[in-house]
């Protein structure tokens, strides 16, 4: 028997999917802004941050309310804890997107275009694929996909280290502005953090599905 208040869990689930989609969209826009020197896309990414923050607050409030008034147990209570943790991860992923967009805007203001994109495109492809799969494994309750996300995080870490080396070398050669070099290192680090949040999401889905 489904109780009338179980609909509140469906609403919570919908909000979680929405914040995940918005955080991913913000990240994609910010990285595209960097790769194509498109200021407009960075502005769109920055605008999404407020919506993501509001959704996180709404998810937290709905979760606390459900725990207080509905006495959830078993998979229901796991869903609530996953919602609280996942929304925090997604809000942080949104913050990273915001940071990428702002640093790209700084580079574009200073240099006109982004000249050295190092491995940003490659690592962002892996990171956003991880994010997409993390959302899908939550939607489809797919334990196998959730477990596969863990391994892919290592590839993003490797590319981030590679970027650091390449950018340091470029600085030594004098082929990159020092300020741009630092901004790009931070952008690379932000993408690496987005992948970490995707990994956390996958771990949360595993907990939701298995209780472990």
């Amino acid at each position, binding site marked *: *028997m489904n109780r009338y208040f179980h609909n509140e869990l469906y609403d919570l689930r919908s909000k979680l999917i929405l914040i995940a989609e918005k955080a991913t969209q913000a990240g994609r826009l910010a990285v595209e802004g960097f790769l194509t020197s498109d200021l407009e896309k960075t502005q769109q990414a920055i605008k999404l941050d407020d919506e993501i923050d509001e959704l996180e607050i709404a998810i937290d409030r709905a979760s606390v309310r459900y725990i207080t*008034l509905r006495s959830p147990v078993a998979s229901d209570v796991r869903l609530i804890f996953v919602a609280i943790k996942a929304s925090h991860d997604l809000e942080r992923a949104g913050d990273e997107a915001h940071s990428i967009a702002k640093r790209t805007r700084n580079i574009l203001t200073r240099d006109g275009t982004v000249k050295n994109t190092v491995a940003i495109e490659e690592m962002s492809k892996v990171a956003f694929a991880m994010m997409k799969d993390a959302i899908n494994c939550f939607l489809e309750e797919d334990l196998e996909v959730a477990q596969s996300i863990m391994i892919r995080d290592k590839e993003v870490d490797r590319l981030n280290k590679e970027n650091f080396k390449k950018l340091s070398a470029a600085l030594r050669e004098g082929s990159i502005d020092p300020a741009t070099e630092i901004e790009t290192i931070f952008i690379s680090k932000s993408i690496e953090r987005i992948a970490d949040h995707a990994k956390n999401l996958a771990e949360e889905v595993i907990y939701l599905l298995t209780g472990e």
Partner: protein
Amino acid sequence: MSETSTPTTRNESEKPTIIEIRNFDFAYGDSQALFDINMDIKEKEVTAFIGPSGCGKSTFLRCFNRMNDLIDIAKIKGGEIKISDVNIYDKDVDVIELRKHVGMVFQKSNPFPKSIYDNIAYGLRIQGVKKKSALDEVVEECLRGAALWDEVKDRLNESALGMSGGQQQRLCIARALAVKPKILLMDEPCSALDPIATAKVEELIHQLKKEYTIVIVTHNMQQAARVSDKTAFFYIGKLIEFSKTDDIFMNPKDPQTEAYISGRFG
């Protein structure tokens, strides 16, 4: 604790008030049971009364349909209770008429030793309704309203005493609905039921509030949290706090409410 029991009240609902209680004092002989209660109960909402045993919540509930009139030593010491703007303790108020408008369901289900059908039809028959088709219609409507029709439609002529406890309680709710009350009072309606039967009654309460105003006394705080829109916390005859259920359980204003709902009482 303050001398009077004017509660902490927040977030007044936009719905119209159906029961208005002002400065209400009530006693059993020399022992005062309720102190200066002030409260507005809104139409088509579920209002829950919570509080420890002996706090006066059931006594207060029974004042709404003058059930306490049956107790010799019961006495209104002051104040008034108005239902739809009529002071129900006015001398010219017909108590039988009042109880048609204010139905009641008790802790222990109390079906008549009659058939399921006759239990529902009883109230209408004593009102003079004799036409079979009219009675059939109301019986079906009430059993559907109490989410019981599908379970009993093929055995309407069987004794109500053969039903499960949960079914009997929902039958009592259906019986109360038959006389078209505006208000339903429920005095611990689930305390004798198992969790599944309790869930069914709670679902029913959720459905019924679309049409009726419900006031429920419960010892089960989770139940109050699940089913009610507003919650009132009583302690030693005083109304300590009355507010939206969300506020009472998530952020109560009075430390006594917080202590009670979090199990730190005493």
